[in-house]
């Protein structure tokens, strides 16, 4: 992630009675809140740092650095009492509240002391506040210098200049402020040793590359563009043959219809193919995805969800394209959707998606979102995938020789999955004709009612088979729990923290089912059977996943499903879930 002119830096930390404890090798997570605009509109950057490793968004801000004249007032007004504000002196932030701790810094003035270049001055002001904040939070100066040197690696002049700024900030704070009144403090830990930091889109790109993707097509759209852009960069580095030639093609298409058309054409011809998009693209791909389903053509489609409907909020996060993916296209269609929750899973599930696409000969969706895709997350390094690729039921020339012929759409194995051949297969029986219109087992045109129905039933069976092959959920039964959470994707991070809050604050143990795919695996029903109520927590207005679950489970269990929905475009936070759950459980008691 590139830090685009952060106008307001917001640092926050769990406030503890005992005084907080943070940073240097302690878990942090940063989230960039930026507008759908190239420059000039307010941007926020929130950092969460705490020793327990919670990395979901936290609604409340503990330590605010206010730099932006347009939002300073509102940002200050939104704080809980007793929080800390570092601010550009000229903004007079202290005029708005009496119940906060204020530290005014003349950033612009200090910066002018360092450089006459006005463009540079703006950047240096940011570094000055880092210095000041470092002093107030007791961050080890050596660590900060280390980070700075790493960031500007090789650019000696930049290092010197920024170091001066850092020192200026630190010095100003030391001379003017009493840091003992700040209730937060950073302390050295060892929680981040060996960890990597990466955004979900880059992680997914790596997953694709190691899955051997050969054809990737895309059309730029926030927040998905960085997936194929990262992929291109990685591929240029790691997927060029000895003779300097590429073992891949990445193509920027003219739109999403073309992107998915190319991906499907490539999948049909045998490539491991993919495309990546966001909601508007998913809408545009509907017709083609129906062809993929019905004519059985593999590809992988990433949806890095932003806020819909329509253009919506392109730079905000949501999980609201679920129905658009699962029921993608007209007619009776049902699709497989895989759902990573972490950058590590972005890597692993991207990898798995290609196997599934080729195994099931159908478009496979991967549902990520802006929060996961575009923000930086800490993670263990990814494990090298040692498995052999599953290229699915593709008949080779040798097999065709042995068989003499084959039925493109027959169900030889009883799993609903037919065999296919690739164009270019040198055997007179290899060829078949693919069409999105009615066809029989031999891929011949047919309008016969029985042919049609048999084929649709087989497709249904194939979908049922998929239940045993999609990524399994992560299940955590809590001791003594009467109720459960069900969540997926980025909601996970708020759920685990909320479970902790509920246990600590309300003595309410709650089990947890983290879904990783549609269609559901059979342990979903087993989980629901165990609990009085299961709260499906998701980031959309209509409870889309809760709906799919209700339709998939026995009627007598439907009454156990509850729905908690967060849909204002910001990443869901633990406190929201905790409050909603507690209120709902109160309601149950009455």
């Amino acid at each position: 992630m590139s830090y685009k002119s952060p106008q307001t830096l917001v640092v926050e930390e769990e406030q503890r009675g005992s005084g907080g404890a943070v940073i240097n090798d302690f878990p942090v997570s940063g989230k960039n809140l930026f507008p759908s605009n190239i420059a000039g509109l307010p941007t926020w950057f929130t950092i969460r740092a705490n020793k327990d490793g919670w990395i979901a968004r936290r609604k409340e801000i503990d330590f605010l650095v206010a730099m932006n004249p347009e939002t300073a007032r509102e940002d200050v007004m939104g704080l809980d009492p007793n929080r800390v504000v570092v601010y550009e002196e000229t903004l007079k932030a202290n005029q708005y509240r009496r119940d906060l701790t204020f530290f005014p810094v003349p950033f612009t003035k200090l910066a002018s002391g360092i450089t006459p270049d006005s463009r540079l001055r703006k950047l240096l002001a940011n570094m000055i506040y880092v210095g000041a904040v470092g002093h107030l939070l007791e961050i080890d100066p050596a660590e900060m210098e280390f980070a700075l040197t790493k960031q500007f690696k090789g650019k000696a002049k930049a290092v010197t200049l920024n170091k001066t700024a850092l020192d200026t900030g630190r010095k100003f704070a030391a001379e003017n402020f009493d840091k003992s009144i700040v209730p937060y403090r950073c302390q050295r830990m060892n929680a981040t040793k060996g960890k990597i930091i990466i955004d979900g889109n880059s992680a997914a790109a790596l997953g694709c590359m190691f899955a051997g993707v050969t054809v990737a097509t895309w059309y730029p759209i926030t927040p998905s563009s960085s997936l194929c852009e990262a992929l291109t960069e990685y591929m240029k580095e790691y997927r060029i043959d000895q003779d300097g030639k590429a073992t891949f093609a990445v193509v920027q298409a003219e739109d999403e219809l073309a992107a998915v058309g190319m991906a499907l054409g490539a999948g049909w011809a045998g490539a491991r193919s993919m495309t990546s998009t966001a909601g508007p693209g998913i809408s545009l791909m509907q017709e083609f995805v129906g062809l993929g389903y019905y004519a059985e053509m593999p590809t992988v489609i990433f949806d890095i969800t932003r806020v819909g409907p329509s253009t919506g909020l392109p730079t905000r996060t949501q999980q609201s394209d679920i129905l658009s993916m699962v029921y993608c296209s007209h007619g009776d269609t049902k699709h497989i959707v895989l759902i990573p929750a972490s950058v590590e899973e972005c890597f692993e599930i991207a990898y798995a998606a290609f196997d599934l696409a080729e195994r099931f000969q159908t478009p496979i969706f991967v549902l990520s979102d802006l929060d996961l895709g575009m923000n930086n997350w800490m993670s263990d390094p990814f494990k090298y995938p040692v498995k052999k690729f599953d290229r699915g039921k593709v008949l080779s020339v040798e097999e065709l020789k042995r068989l003499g012929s084959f039925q493109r759409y027959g169900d030889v194995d009883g799993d609903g999955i037919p065999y296919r051949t690739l164009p270019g297969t040198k055997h007179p029986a290899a060829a078949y004709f693919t069409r999105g219109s009615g066809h029989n087992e031999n891929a011949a045109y047919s309008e016969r009612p029985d042919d049609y129905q048999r084929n649709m039933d087989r497709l249904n069976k194939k979908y049922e088979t998929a239940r045993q092959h999609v990524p399994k959920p992560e299940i955590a039964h809590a001791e003594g729990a009467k109720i459960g959470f069900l969540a997926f994707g980025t909601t996970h991070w708020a759920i685990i923290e909320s479970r902790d809050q509920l246990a600590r604050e309300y003595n309410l143990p709650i089990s947890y089912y983290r879904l990783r795919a549609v269609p559901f695996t059979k342990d979903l029903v087993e989980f629901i059977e165990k609990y009085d109520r299961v709260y499906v927590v998701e980031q959309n207005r209509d409870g889309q996943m809760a709906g799919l679950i209700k339709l998939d489970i026995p009627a007598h269990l439907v009454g156990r499903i509850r729905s908690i929905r967060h849909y204002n475009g910001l990443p869901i936070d633990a406190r929201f879930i905790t409050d909603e759950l507690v209120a709902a459980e109160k309601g149950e008691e009455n």
Partner: protein
Amino acid sequence: MSTTVQPPAAAPKHMNRLGYTIADYKGADSTLCAGCGHDAITSQIIKAFYEYGVEPYRVAKLSGIGCSSKTPAYFLNMSHGLNGVHGRMPSLGTGVMLANRTLISIGVSGDGDTASIGMGQFVHLLRRNIPMIYLIENNGVYGLTKGQFSATADYGSKAKSGVVNQLPAIDLCAMAIDLGCNFVCRSFAGDPKQLVALLKAALGHRGTSLFDVISPCVTFNNHDGSTKSYKYAKDHEELLHEISFVPFFEQINVEYQEGEAIDVELHDGSHIRLRKTDKGYDPTNKGEALDTLRNCQESSEFLTGLIYINESKPDFLTLLNMVDAPLATLPQERVQPSAEDLTEIMAALM
């Protein structure tokens, strides 16, 4: 000018150089209306692929939706076929060629499929110069949905119902040349000889070759007042040149006067020889090609022949600098970076 004499390799009469018979290039029985221009074109495709000697298993047949788009089922039964959705054949075809650059692809589309719903993808396929024979069976109407005007219907053309088309026709050849297509021709379903020669030449070209073939719809657009009827086309056809094709594997020596014909060497070493008519047309001149098209648009002439050719431009696959082997079948070892690579990447992220 002259080329060396060499007798064609001896092969049984009813077989081509690869040992296939013409039956090997046929497809299922056509279900189109008797007399439909599209069936005539199908026959010429079969003939051209047979005579050139194309390996059927190397061919990918592509199409959109429409009567025209059904035809790939009626030729080359031994080739894989992909009949996609309406107007989106170009993207499917692009994907297929990205996946396997060793394939020879032929896409059949209609004027509705290309010039209406398919316009966007058509333009971008041409701009990319995807290696593909892109053949439009142009009848000026939507056959399969029963005769509505398409965007290539000529201004003033009359529908069966008597309604007169008031919008200008899109000239797909002019558009193709403008967009950088390097093999652009117009032909007629009723002129088999020309069409076969052009198709064989296209097989020797690398990059998109565009065929705008007038192909009358006998059911909905073959009446008086139509400008896409057999009669109108026959009455108005103006040959740009007489075409002969010399495949790379046959070297014939026919002397001809400098200036009397134009001889273009194709990418595969074949030659196309264009014997000039009194028009004295040079298809390697882009400006002349476009001017000629514009003039005949204005005078409602129906020119046929090779309108523009340029053998020097690279196709999209070349620009992508891909490995020679099909991407589709590269083994895991060639497409999965090593464990060391992953370690290196992870280290950089720490």
